[in-house]
């Protein structure tokens, strides 16, 4: 229910700029419900984030979201997906980058580009068990260190595995 028509042209511009700059890394781009999601390769994630931040005005990394696609993909090695929500406040547009965490369940840390990624990545490590290479201090943020398992994985039961008292 977007009250204001989203500036689709502006988003398409961003997509084009990304494709021009990173022809190999940018794969698909989906425009849905007024939001643009761009699939990127992990090798150039930091480059893309830097490009968006310093040259395209996406000054804020609003959030990092992890998904466990166990239900649709099954027990494959690459069931985790990371989404990076970026906001350009000057142009008033949002952009979402989509990154496959891959078989080794890890991703490059975005902290060198956006300091706000720090706790968001720790949270994903805690909840999903994905590792971020280059993160300054990757440890559990919510659960105690001795907790076993990662609750937001789809195969983790809601009531836990009896690690309580």
């Amino acid at each position: 229910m977007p009250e204001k028509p989203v500036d689709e042209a502006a988003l398409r511009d961003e997509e084009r700029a990304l494709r021009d700059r990173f022809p190999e890394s940018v794969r698909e781009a989906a425009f849905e419900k007024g939001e643009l999601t761009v699939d990127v390769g992990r090798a150039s994630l930091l480059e893309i984030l830097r490009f968006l931040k310093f040259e395209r005005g996406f000054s804020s990394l609003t959030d990092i979201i992890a998904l466990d696609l166990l239900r649709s993909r099954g027990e494959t090695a690459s069931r985790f997906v990371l989404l990076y929500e970026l906001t350009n406040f000057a142009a008033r547009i949002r952009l979402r980058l989509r990154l496959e965490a891959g078989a080794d369940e890890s991703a490059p840390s975005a902290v060198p580009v956006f300091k706000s990624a720090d706790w968001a990545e720790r949270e994903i490590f805690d909840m999903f068990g994905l590792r971020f290479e280059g993160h300054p201090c990757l440890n559990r943020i919510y659960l105690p260190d001795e907790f076993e398992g990662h609750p937001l994985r789809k195969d983790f039961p809601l009531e836990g595995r009896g690690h309580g008292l």
Partner: protein
Amino acid sequence: MAFKEIELNMGPQHPSTHGVLRLKLAVDNEVVLSVEPILGYLHRGMEKLWESQTYTQIVPLTDRLDYLASLSNNLGFVLAVEKLAGVEVPKRAQVIRVVLAELQRLASHLAWVGFMANDIGAMSILLYGFEQREDILDIFEEYIGGRLTVHGIRLGGVPRDLDGPLIARIKTVLDAIPHTLHDIQALLNENRIWKQRTVGVGVISPAEAVERGLTGPPLRATGVARDTRKDFPYSSYDDFDFDVPLGKNGDVYDRYRVRMEEINQSIRLIRQALEALPPGDVRAKVPRLFKVPAGEVYHAIEAPKGELGFYIRSDGSEKPDRVKMRSPSFINLQSLALMCQGNLFADVVGILGSLDIVLGEIDK
């Protein structure tokens, strides 16, 4: 003095960590060397729980996130679901939502100034703020029955229309708030002790604030004009005329002034909204077992604490596949360590208070 560096543990049970936050401090003769927040003492597994609930069931659970502003949580979640499902909300409901969300902002800020002043040692302000807040909670109670966890915004609209007596009551409360605000500001604004404790304390530069994802009043206190209500208008906020108060120095005092001015702006907004209530229904037809079409969406609103975003991914069933909340307190708290460095131990309490954190939405 006898000791050099000592390590102090503040919390998780400490009078002024606003809940069960734990801070690990390294202190050298009362000067703070480092602060490390340790979270998770209120981690309730909300996001996991939501995956097993229907959309309708999740709305009351969002009340328990930022429990000082439950209606804002409702609004954020409901708007995201509606965006995903393409529900058209009647105009009257949109305006009533503005009224409710702004009343909630008033309540949240009034409680905040009380907690903040209490942390700095001015205990009466807490009572004045809470007394005024009670009047707002009375409106919620009359509207839908809840005081704290209101559940006053539902999928597709609002549960009840605003009727004449209730509107009159809201207007009476709106008339009273500026008096309370004046009392509070008379006690604090030019108070020398208050200024000593807040001016130039916990400073963060605009660049650092943006870099660390700060939102809400702490960001606006640095002079960066960002307000989701203006930048990405929702629920017909763009129909109304209001200002975004800004600070200059990004210190605790400016955060206080920004919030106080926001109270005035919210009053202005509610008055306009009450005048401009369009006729019509207050709720679109939404089935109780609401099957949301598959897809993903991110929607953010301006909660009293900052940008509150919900990412929802649906697989087409009546339960979401994943809900991720961007809680403003969580992201704002990241900047605490930077703000505290080099300040005195006594100021940690004030700086923490000035961020307006609620553990419910930090730990989720």
